C-alpha cells in the first residue's frame, strides 16, 4: 500500500515540475503550425496531467480500500 502511495505522489508531482520549469519552456522554437513552443508545450501537458492524475487516483483508491479492510478486520 505504501508503495502505491509513493508512485501516486510521484505521478502527481510530475506535472507540477513540468509547469514550474518555466525557463526551460519559455522559448519560441520549435514552433508547431506557427504556435511558439511556450504555448504548445503547456497545452500538451494538459492531457498528460489528466492521464497521470487518473492513474494516481486509481492507485490512491486501491491503496485506501486495502488499508480500510485491514483496519476493520482487526
Amino acid at each position, binding site marked *: 500500500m505504501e508503495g502505491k502511495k509513493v508512485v501516486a505522489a510521484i505521478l*502527481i508531482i510530475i*506535472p*507540477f515540475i513540468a*509547469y*514550474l520549469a*518555466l*525557463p526551460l519552456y*519559455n*522559448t*519560441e522554437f520549435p*514552433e508547431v*503550425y*506557427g*504556435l*511558439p513552443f*511556450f*504555448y504548445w508545450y*503547456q*497545452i500538451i*501537458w*494538459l*492531457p498528460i*496531467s*489528466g492521464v497521470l*492524475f*487518473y492513474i*494516481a*487516483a*486509481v492507485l*490512491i*483508491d486501491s491503496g485506501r480500500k486495502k488499508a*480500510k479492510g485491514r*483496519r*476493520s478486520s482487526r
Partner: protein
Amino acid sequence: MIDALTFLVFVTLFIVFIVIGFLGRLFRKGDLSKIEEWGLGGRRMGTALVWFLVGADLFTAYTFIAVPSSMFAVGSLYYFAVPYVSITFAIAMLTMPRLWRYAKKRGYVTAADFVKDKFNSRNLAIIIAVTGIVAELPYIALQVVGMQAILSAMLAGVANFALVSDVALILAFLAIAGFTYFAGLRGVTLTAVFKDILIFTTVIVVILAVTFAVGGFGKSFAAVPKYVTLPPAYSTAYISLFVMSAFALYLYPHAINGSLSAQDDKKLRRSQALLPIYAIGLAFIVLFGVMVYAVPHAMAALDSVPAASRGVLVVPTLIASTMPGWFTGFAFLGIFIGGLVPAAIMAIAVANLLTRNIVKEIRPKMTPHNETRSAKWIAVIFEFVALGFVFAVPATYSIQLQLLGGIIILQTLPAVFIALFTDKLNKYSIMTGWAAGIITGIGLLEYVNNYGLLTKSLISSPFGAIFIGAIALAVNLLIVVVWSAIAPGKASKSFLQATKNV
C-alpha cells in the same frame, strides 16, 4: 455575420436550454424539499456529471470573454490560466474526496459545516461562510458582464440597444431563477452538459476554421511579436499567479458544492483527475486573443469601438467575422448560457452557505423544510442581486472585486484544506492568520493601486513582480503554523469519534 438566422438559432437553442433546466427536476428524482436533494442533487452525481458540473465553472462567460481579452491586450502573462487548470485538479483530487467522506458521514452541505464541526466553533464557521459569500458575489456579477458582451455584439445597430439588452438579460435571469428554484442542482447539471456541448463545438470549429483560413498561428504572432514568449521579468508573477489560482479554485463555494454532489469519493477523485483534459478547450479559447490579430475585418470591427469596450468584444467579434450567421447564433448562445449556468451553480452554493451557516445560527430552530425553502429563495434573490449589481455599477468595479475575491478566498485555506489532514491546528491561530492575511492582501492591493481603482494585483519583490495573494497567504500560513506548533489545538471529540474510520 449577424443576420436573422443568428437570432433564430440563438432563441431556439435558448428555449431548448430552459426546457432541459426544468426537466432536471425529474432527473434521478428526489424529495426537493430536502436541502441535500435540492442543493446537492441528492449526492447522486456520477463521474461524468461531476466532470461537467465542476468543469462548467471553467468555461464561464467570464473566462470566455475576459481571459482572451487580457491575452489580446496584455499578452502571454495571461496564459497562466493553462498551468492553473492542470494543477488545480491535482489539489482537488487530493482534498475533495476526503471532504466528501466527512460530509457524507456528518451530513455537511458546505465547507463551513465541516469547519464548525471539526473545530467546534460557530464563529470560525461564520468567518469561513462570510468569506466565501463575499468572494463569490463578484464572480456571479462578472458572468452578467460576459453575457452583456454577447448581447452587445449581437444587438449592435438595433434601435434602443441598451433597453433591448437589459430586457433580454432580465428574461434570461427569470428563466434561470425559475429552474434554480424548482429543479435545484439537478436542473443546473443537465444544462451544464448542454452548454458544454455547444461550447466545445464552438471552440473546435472556430480554432480549425480560423487557423486554416489564415494559415496557422504564424501571422497572428507576427502582428504582436512580444507575445511570442513570456518576458523573463514576469516569471515569478506567472508562477505565483498559476499556483495561487490553483489553490483558490477549490476554496470557492461553487467548486466545493459541486464536489459534494458526487455519488461517491472514488467517482469524485476520478472525475477531478480527468478535468485537465477538459481544460484543453480553455487553452485554445485563450489563444483566440492572439488569433484575432490575423483576421483583418475582425480587427477593423474592433477598431471601430472605443478602446475601453474593445476587450470584451474580442471573442464575439472573432466569431461573428469568421463564421456563418447560423453558427454565430449557436456559438453566442453557448457563451451566453455559459454565464447563466455557472451563475446558477454559484447562487445555489451561496444559498447553502447563507442558510446553513448564517441564518440557521441566528434561528437554530428552523425546520429542515424551512431551511430548504429559505435556500431556494436566497438563491433566486442572489441571482437578481448580481444582475442588479451589474446594472447599477460599471463593469470595472466587478472586475476589481473579483481581484479582491481571489485574494480573500485564499485566506480560508488553513481552515478548509489543512484541517482536512491534521487535528493539531489551533482555531485561534486560524482566525488570527485569516485576519492578518486579509489585512495584508487588501493593504498591499490598495498600495500598488495608489489607493485608487484596483487594476493591478502584482507587487514588485526582490524576485520580480509577484501576485499579492501569495504574500497574504504566506503571512497567514506563518501565523497558523508557528502558533499551532507552540500551542496545538484539539479537534472536537464528536468529530474524531465519528470519523475514525472514514
